[in-house]
């Protein structure tokens, strides 16, 4: 028996997403197809698999090499969406994670931050550009709409950056090394 669940996780909520997938696993639902909003599950023994996510920005050749390495450790790739790779591993009673120390977990987050910073600056530029048009007296609908739109998008990326940085702080404060 299969079922599809619609859920939205924003990029920086990947740990919550992993927790959710593992909770589904505990209820006997194993992920077969991850998607942007639609997750397909198949009924199976509770806790059969554990799941993890990673944001990957590598060339195809390097990715192949990396996946071959992961396979050695019993890690399977079950899908990819927008540079996010979904892994599963047969549950051996131990927590499943791709990164086990602060340095590598931080490096993983840096991959996201790089993209966020670029977009934040870009969208921020468009926001300010349109805002300046407004402030210089041009109250055309276009500039009002664009100011609001780019303002919101800039805010979104600012939130993303803030969330990731806060996550890293939490790890450090939690004593992770």
């Amino acid at each position, binding site marked *: 028996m299969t079922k599809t669940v619609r859920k939205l996780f924003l990029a920086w909520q990947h740990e919550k997403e992993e927790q959710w997938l593992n909770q589904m696993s505990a209820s006997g639902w194993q992920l077969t197809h991850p998607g942007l909003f639609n997750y397909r599950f198949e009924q199976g023994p509770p806790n059969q698999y554990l799941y993890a996510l990673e944001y990957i920005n590598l060339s195809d050749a390097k990715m192949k090499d990396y996946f071959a390495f992961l396979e050695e450790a019993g890690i399977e790739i079950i899908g990819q969406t927008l540079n996010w790779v979904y892994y599963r591993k047969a549950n051996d009673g131990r927590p499943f994670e791709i990164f086990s*120390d602060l340095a590598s977990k931080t490096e993983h987050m840096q991959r996201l931050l790089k993209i966020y910073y670029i977009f934040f600056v870009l969208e921020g530029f468009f926001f300010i550009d349109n805002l300046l048009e407004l402030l210089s007296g041009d109250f055309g609908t276009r500039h009002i709409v664009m100011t609001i739109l780019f303002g919101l998008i800039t805010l979104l990326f600012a939130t993303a950056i803030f969330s990731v940085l806060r996550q890293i702080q939490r790890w450090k404060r939690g004593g992770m090394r």
Partner: protein
Amino acid sequence: MDNIVLTEAFYYILLSLFEPLHGYGIMQKVEEMSKGRLRLAAGTLYGALNSLMAKDWISALPVEDGSRRKVYEITATGKALVQFEIRRLQELLDNGLAVSGGNQDD
């Protein structure tokens, strides 16, 4: 080599590569040596191995045909680094024992 301080993970990975070993073997060896205290996750290990190769402290051996598994081994530079690190740790240990007397009750 003066100011290089190895993380525990790097130190144990180098130690486990005094004999050629493949990725999963390294994970097991490190866990065994640290009595379960240090468990390297696959992504962390992969990044560490690439770092260590870039510094030429370890090298990847040519793969045997049929086997897709890469095997790694420590280099001469890596071995010298380990020796240096052991001397550093020994100094820390000696001073710690001398000052605190190794006394764990207090």
